[in-house]
């Protein structure tokens, strides 16, 4: 549908935002009833969380190790390489773990969600459910949404922990920063506030990524190209929203 008027793009954007919001509210209303089928929820936590575990752990380890290397190189110029633990822990907890986990989640689990629901739409499975008086929003969308929201903070916590051990591995084992100093400086500077900042971010990102994936899949055009487009839009929209929200949340927490 090509509309020649330039204002229609703006209007289209506003309309899309409204549609997502309405969808979000409808989804939230279905979330509590969908808890009565815990097996569906467990399955989605498994799909979104447990199956993303390997890539999250691997990414966390390497991000932590790179942080150790770069941080050490930077800090030893000022003769304060014992601040490495602080730098790595704060960087991971507050920024890197929530953001990278969310980006990986959008790529790994978000696309799977969007294409799965999109294909259900394309093969008329959702319509069939409606005919059988099964609410597809409550049966298909809500458990997937909730599964993503539950999985994201846990994945972020795992990312932080593995990343910290990666930084410790490089800093202490390779670069010979004193182990006691590394941990005591870390413990001296990390607050519960820093941990909760990361957790709040990850919950927000979890809601955003899961919502976008489910929405795009649910409203995909019922064709092969439509499902592909929905998948692409999921990744692009999730990434942009995550980075945008990250700035806003960081500004709010500082």
């Amino acid at each position, binding site marked *: 549908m090509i509309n020649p008027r330039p204002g229609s793009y703006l209007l289209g954007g506003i309309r899309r935002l409204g549609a997502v919001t309405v969808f979000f509210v409808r989804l939230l209303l279905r979330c509590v009833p969908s808890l009565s089928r815990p097996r569906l929820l*467990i*399955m989605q*936590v*498994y799909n979104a*969380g*447990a*199956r993303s*575990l390997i890539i999250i752990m691997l990414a966390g380890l390497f991000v932590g190790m790179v942080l150790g290397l770069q941080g050490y190189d930077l800090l030893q110029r*000022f*003769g*304060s*390489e*014992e*601040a490495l633990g602080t730098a790595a*822990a704060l960087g991971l*907890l507050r920024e890197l773990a929530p953001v990278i986990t969310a980006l990986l989640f959008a790529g790994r689990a978000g696309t799977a969600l969007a294409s799965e629901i999109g294909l259900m739409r394309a093969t008329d499975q959702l319509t069939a459910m409606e005919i059988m008086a099964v609410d597809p929003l409550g049966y298909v969308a809500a458990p997937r949404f909730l599964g993503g929201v539950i*999985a994201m*903070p*846990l*994945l972020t*916590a*795992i990312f*932080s*922990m*593995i990343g*910290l051990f990666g930084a410790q591995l490089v800093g202490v084992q390779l670069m010979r920063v*004193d182990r*006691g*100093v590394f*941990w*005591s*400086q*870390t*413990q*001296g500077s*990390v*607050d*519960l506030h820093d*941990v909760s900042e990361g*957790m709040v971010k990850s919950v927000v990102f979890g809601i955003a990524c899961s919502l976008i994936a489910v929405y795009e899949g649910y409203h995909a055009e019922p064709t092969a190209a439509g499902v592909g487009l929905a998948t692409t839009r999921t990744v692009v929209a999730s990434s942009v929203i995550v980075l945008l929200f990250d700035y806003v949340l960081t500004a709010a927490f500082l």
Partner: protein
Amino acid sequence: MQSNRTLEIGTGLFVLLGFAALLFLTTQLPASGLKLGGQKAGYYVTAQFDNIGDLKVGSPVTMSGVRVGEVAGIHFDSRIYKAVVRMRIDPQYNEIPDDSFASIQTEGLLGGKYVGISPGGLDTYLKDGSRIDMTQSAIVLETLINKFFASFASKGTGDTEQSTDKEPRK
């Protein structure tokens, strides 16, 4: 129902791991959290300092620059108005003379603090529960700068600068 079992086990492991990581981050990372982990081998000695700077639990204890132990505990003794630092010395360094000298030093210009021990000359050695009597406090950079400016001002034109060298702290 084989696939159901793996699904439940996988989800269970994932959730367990997630909460374990969360527990680690909330309890082990902040210094206020409770500490797990067993006691390490070694013996404990104490030393009293007027000022420990920002010495922390876990900071190294060194002799001639070699790490021989770590700071195990710090508390303030309100009877003598001094900081009491409890140090764990590794068991293989059991021949440190009783009259050794402990000082708090700084790694690098802005780095963390550590305790340096210089050996004394006695034939009796430190053992569990001993106290190092001779100590030197941490050198606080700001005090040093203040002293420097004070002497600088009195040597120079007059004492007019002495009152202006202290900037209000934020």
